[in-house]
């Protein structure tokens, strides 16, 4: 079938059985892949109130209909399960080659339940699957495991997704690493793998992804290869970290646990400085000419191994400015350690930032931190903390809980210093700069997330590239980043649904395909008569299903809010005196609920589910729906 294989690999780690489930075209057209398929399985197969780290949780690796077709940005995959970090719907996406390889191996997704008694890894190759002993891999770094699996299977081209020692140790924000340099970072999916004693999934396939109109697809792929140097030269040149100085100058670079918005050391840790100092290569994902991935190497004062890639912007912020660290080599080292251990750099950094603020305020003593001098800027303390988190030793065992749980245990007002939404640490985008992004943090099904969110600053000017896209979707008035009017909320949802589409088609959001080109890509790969309306609905449907899952799990909707800090203006810098009024913000959130077809309390109505073609999900709604 063009675009999908029609097969989902099922695994029960409790019994050691694997089997194949076949799905028809309408399943893929309704749920696509990624978040759509994950939410479908979580709603239908995870029992209510299941322990995220218990055998009842279901872990899904999902590609999408566009994944693996030969064009830029199609190498990705999503990983989803009930999240041990938020207690609700969890998923994250990673780049690289794993998603494309999974499709070539004959499957659109892998759905895994149960827990193994002893460590195993799953080997999937050309339509076959086997569970293999992983006792010898347990406790090893991601690099060691990658080497051992490739050696054991006698295949250098196998693609490995794995949880790292942090996942084994159930660190709540452990991530899943693809090929050592690409990460499904958020919501603790590595801990779910660890709880199942599933250390890795290795995939290899010699098959092809069928394409309905290969000639049209070739034409589109060629167009992007020719135009990427003009459309996205910044990403190639300086990677995602190319925006570090921009944000600092604008006052929106998270600094010292979001206490400040500009960092005096921003230039020293920027993508430009990285390019001019420690960068040794640029890496890429399946079929992508942009090459935004960094490869760094250093010898002193810290030795950084280039096989773990280099820091993204998120890591520059979370292990740099937000910890008061202006030493790029130290950030690269922290990034390497997180990658070798399987830790999400955002949650790791933001949880340490929280601990640093507590420490400076005297909520922890040096004795309580086990001698870690957690003052902002102390890079050696940060590197040591990363080791302790991975091992869950000493103070690291507390940090491994994440900022929400840790702040609850401390009490004494520490909750107000923990920068998270519903348990997920806030990424490196400042709601006092981008107001509707803050609404997005609150209403996202995964807690604070930047990937499927709306970045207001891209839509302020009529002739900006970001806004140009929206005209084709019927939005004609650009709005300031600080606007929270209903018009802005409409813009927010349109962009959120569009970005979520990337996570159900399972393609990269950085490759600058226009909406019209996305339509053409879907049509060329699948042969469907897809329009922009179907694209937006696919994103909205997946988001809504994930929300229904959260409601079924009894998520407290009063937690859909931002930490108080984001309503207090900075006292200095470019954004001094500017912050959303809490009443205006709350009203905008309710507008967002209503515009999505939810009640004022935030519950999707039956009519909303019917409009999205998922009326069956209404049985999971609380009574008010």
């Amino acid at each position, binding site marked *: 079938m063009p675009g999908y294989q029609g097969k989902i690999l099922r695994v029960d780690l409790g019994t050691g059985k694997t089997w194949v489930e076949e799905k028809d075209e309408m399943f893929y057209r309704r749920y696509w892949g990624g978040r759509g398929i994950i939410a479908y399985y979580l709603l239908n197969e995870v029992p209510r109130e299941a322990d995220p780290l218990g055998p009842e949780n279901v872990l899904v690796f999902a590609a999408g209909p566009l994944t693996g077709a030969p064009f830029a940005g199609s190498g990705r995959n999503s990983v989803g399960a009930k999240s041990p970090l938020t207690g609700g719907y969890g998923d994250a996406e990673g780049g690289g080659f794993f998603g494309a390889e999974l499709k070539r191996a004959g499957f659109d997704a892998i759905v895994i339940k149960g827990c193994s008694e002893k460590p195993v890894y799953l080997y999937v190759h050309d339509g076959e699957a086997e569970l293999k002993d992983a006792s010898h891999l347990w406790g090893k770094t991601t690099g060691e495991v990658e080497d051992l699996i490739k050696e054991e299977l006698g295949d250098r081209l196998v693609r490995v997704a794995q949880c790292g020692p942090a996942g084994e140790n159930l660190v709540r924000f452990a991530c899943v690493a693809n090929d050592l340099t690409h990460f499904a970072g958020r919501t603790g999916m590595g801990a779910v793998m660890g709880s199942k004693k599933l250390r890795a999934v290795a995939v290899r396939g010699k098959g092809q992804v069928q394409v309905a109109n290969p000639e049209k697809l070739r034409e589109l792929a060629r167009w992007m290869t020719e135009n990427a*140097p*003009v*459309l*996205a*030269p*910044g*990403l190639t*040149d*300086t990677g*995602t970290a*190319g*925006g570090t*100085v*921009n*944000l600092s*100058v*604008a006052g*929106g670079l998270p600094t010292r646990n979001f206490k400040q918005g500009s960092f005096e050391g921003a230039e020293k840790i920027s993508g*430009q400085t990285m390019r001019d100092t420690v960068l040794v290569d640029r890496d890429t994902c399946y079929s992508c000419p942009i090459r935004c991935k960094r490869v760094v190497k250093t010898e002193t004062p810290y030795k950084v191994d280039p096989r773990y890639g280099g820091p993204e*912007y998120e890591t520059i912020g979370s292990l740099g400015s937000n910890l008061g660290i202006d030493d790029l080599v130290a950030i690269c080292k922290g990034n390497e350690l997180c990658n070798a251990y399987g830790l999400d750099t955002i949650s790791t950094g933001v949880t340490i930032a929280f601990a640093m603020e507590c420490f400076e305020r005297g909520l922890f003593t040096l004795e309580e931190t086990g001698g870690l001098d957690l003052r902002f800027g102390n890079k050696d303390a940060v590197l040591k903390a990363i080791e302790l988190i991975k091992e869950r030793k000493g103070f690291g065992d507390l940090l491994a809980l994440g900022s929400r749980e840790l702040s609850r245990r401390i009490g004494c007002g520490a909750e107000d210093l923990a920068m998270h939404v519903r348990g997920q640490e806030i990424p490196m*985008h400042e709601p006092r700069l981008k107001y509707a*992004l803050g609404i997005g943090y609150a209403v996202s099904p995964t807690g604070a997330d*930047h*990937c499927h*969110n709306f*970045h207001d*600053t*891209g839509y*302020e*000017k*009529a*002739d*900006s*590239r*970001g*806004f140009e896209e929206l005209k084709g979707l019927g939005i004609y008035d650009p709005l300031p980043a600080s606007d929270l009017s209903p018009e802005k909320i409409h813009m927010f949802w349109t962009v959120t649904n569009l970005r979520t589409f990337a996570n159900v088609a399972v393609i990269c*959001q*950085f490759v600058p395909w226009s909406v019209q080109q996305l339509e053409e890509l879907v049509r060329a790969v699948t042969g469907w008569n897809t329009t922009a309306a179907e694209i937006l609905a696919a994103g909205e449907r997946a988001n809504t299903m994930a929300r229904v899952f959260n409601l079924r799990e009894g998520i407290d909707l009063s937690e859909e809010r931002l930490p108080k800090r984001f309503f207090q203006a900075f006292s200095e810098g*470019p954004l001094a005196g500017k912050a959303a009024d809490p009443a205006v913000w709350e009203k905008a959130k309710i507008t967002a609920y209503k515009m999505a077809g939810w009640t004022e309390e935030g519950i999707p109505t039956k009519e909303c589910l019917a409009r999205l073609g998922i009326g069956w999900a209404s049985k999971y709604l609380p009574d008010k729906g």
Partner: protein
Amino acid sequence: MKLKVKLFGDLIRYSPSGRDVFELEVPGFNGSDATVKELIRALGIPEGEVWIITVNGVQAQAERILTEGDEVMIFAPVMGG
């Protein structure tokens, strides 16, 4: 008038040298009446692609008058990811 220019993000595509940092001799500018706006126009950057401008490290508006040796940084809007 010679200026030091630094372009950020995708604005690098408007660099005459292909590099993000360069010196620019702007013909027709004579000290007192050259503005940031004119520099941006001379580089061929569409107005909608400019987010923030700084001159000698301080945020500036498009009407800001430039003088010999000024360091101008031009930033594209940051989306997210």
